[in-house]
């Protein structure tokens, strides 16, 4: 799915993002980099529908989704800290999405397998390490069959071994399923994951 911003602006407190004109082709893995306060997370929130722009339009393919709520966007979001639902097991978290009807246990297992998280299925989030929680959360996002995947510093506080394995799995999955990915990162090595890089500074696109 193509993501397109036309003249998008968003003011949050004293900070203003944009005006931004942006086009991310379908199936592209784009890494967003920039210093703190550049507007990376605000941009992701605008794509996810957590925020609506003050001006401009957001389009997915030809559809204007500027005012569409998050649940109508098919854009799964992975936050910088694990946001698994604490009252559910890992398997129940993965089966959570109502977007395509109830998931069968086989679907849940296969989503967990993609991230090497099947052994975690019966555990609660409080019992997981950060790396395990991250695997489970990405499996949950993938199980919702998104057209867009939004990753907000997803590999922060994960040890390097886990980080490389999870990043490689996500990259392969996104390519296989033609999921458009926007990945915010502070790590230089994540730039190599992207088909393209978007650099933000002070709310504007640098390159």
């Amino acid at each position, binding site marked *: 799915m193509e993501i397109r911003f036309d003249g998008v602006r968003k003011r949050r407190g004293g900070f203003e993002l944009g005006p931004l004109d942006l086009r991310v082709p379908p199936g592209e893995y784009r890494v967003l980099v920039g210093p703190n306060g550049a507007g990376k997370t605000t941009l992701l929130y605008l794509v*996810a529908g957590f925020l609506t722009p003050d001006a401009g339009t957001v389009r997915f393919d030809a559809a204007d989704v500027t005012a569409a709520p*998050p649940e109508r966007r098919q854009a799964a979001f992975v936050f910088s800290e694990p946001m698994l*639902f604490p009252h559910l097991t890992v398997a129940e978290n993965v089966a959570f999405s109502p977007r395509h009807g109830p998931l069968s246990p086989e679907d849940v297992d296969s989503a967990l397998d993609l991230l090497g998280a099947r052994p975690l299925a019966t555990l*609660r989030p409080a019992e997981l390490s950060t790396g395990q929680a991250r695997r489970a959360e990405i499996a949950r*996002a993938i199980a919702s069959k998104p057209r867009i995947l939004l990753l907000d510093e997803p590999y922060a506080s994960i040890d390097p071994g886990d980080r490389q394995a999870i990043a490689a799995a996500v990259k392969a999955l996104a390519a296989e399923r033609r999921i458009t990915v926007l990945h915010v990162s502070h790590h230089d090595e994540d730039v190599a994951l992207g088909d393209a890089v978007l650099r933000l500074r002070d709310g504007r696109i640098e390159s």
Partner: protein
Amino acid sequence: MRTPHRPPLVFLVPLAILIVLLVVPLAVLLGLAAGYGLGAAFLDPAFLASVLVTFAGAGLAAGLAALLGTPSAYALSRGLVGGRLGAVIEAVLLAPLTVPHVIAGIALLLTSSPLSPLYPFLGGLRIVDTFLGLTLAFFFVSSPLFVSGVKESLGKMDPRLELASRSLGAGPGETFRRVVVPGLRGPILESFLLTWARAVSEFGSIVILAYFLLGLPLLGTVLPASVFVFNAYQVGGLYVALGYAGALLVFSLIPLILLQAVKARPWRSASTA
């Protein structure tokens, strides 16, 4: 967090004074009641009926507070009613905590009376000396505790959990039902028990609105428990009231004991982590 050292006296002394001020009067009452009809009170059918009706009305009021208060607390906590209006609504919802409860009783009495502009609509509602009136009075004076308790817990719950749910395709209602409410089950249960306990102890409003409860099936005419004790004091004096007062004190500890049991449950800490 526990410290291996004994806490300094600067903390222990105020704590000890607080305990003495709060517990000693109740302990004295219970001790004296044992010699003045405490045992007989537990076997008095009229008193037991009053306790039953009071706990049932208070439980219904707490249940209604949970039903209405959970989404209300959520709306206020998440700024769904924003700006100055949200602040005004919150103040209005908490107002019954500061209004003297006798006034609450008079206000409820007037609302459905012929003096009220709402009489054409509410005149048929029989709230004077009825179980409905008792429950409404309990609800009026105790539901703000529920709303403020749940709202405080919502403040500790990361709103990004709700955003994650929305991004997975769940709408606001489904997110509330599947993420917020289960995540708050501990605080909801605790607030329910606290609201129930507060309602059981109510006197000021029900002495105006529901001094007698007339025509209850199987029970006939019943006095709410606190009114029962007050009536015993008025009619028979201190020594007659003592046994009932002690017994009601014991009964009123039940919700608090349940509350402590709920607080000790391990899932409580995970629900608002």
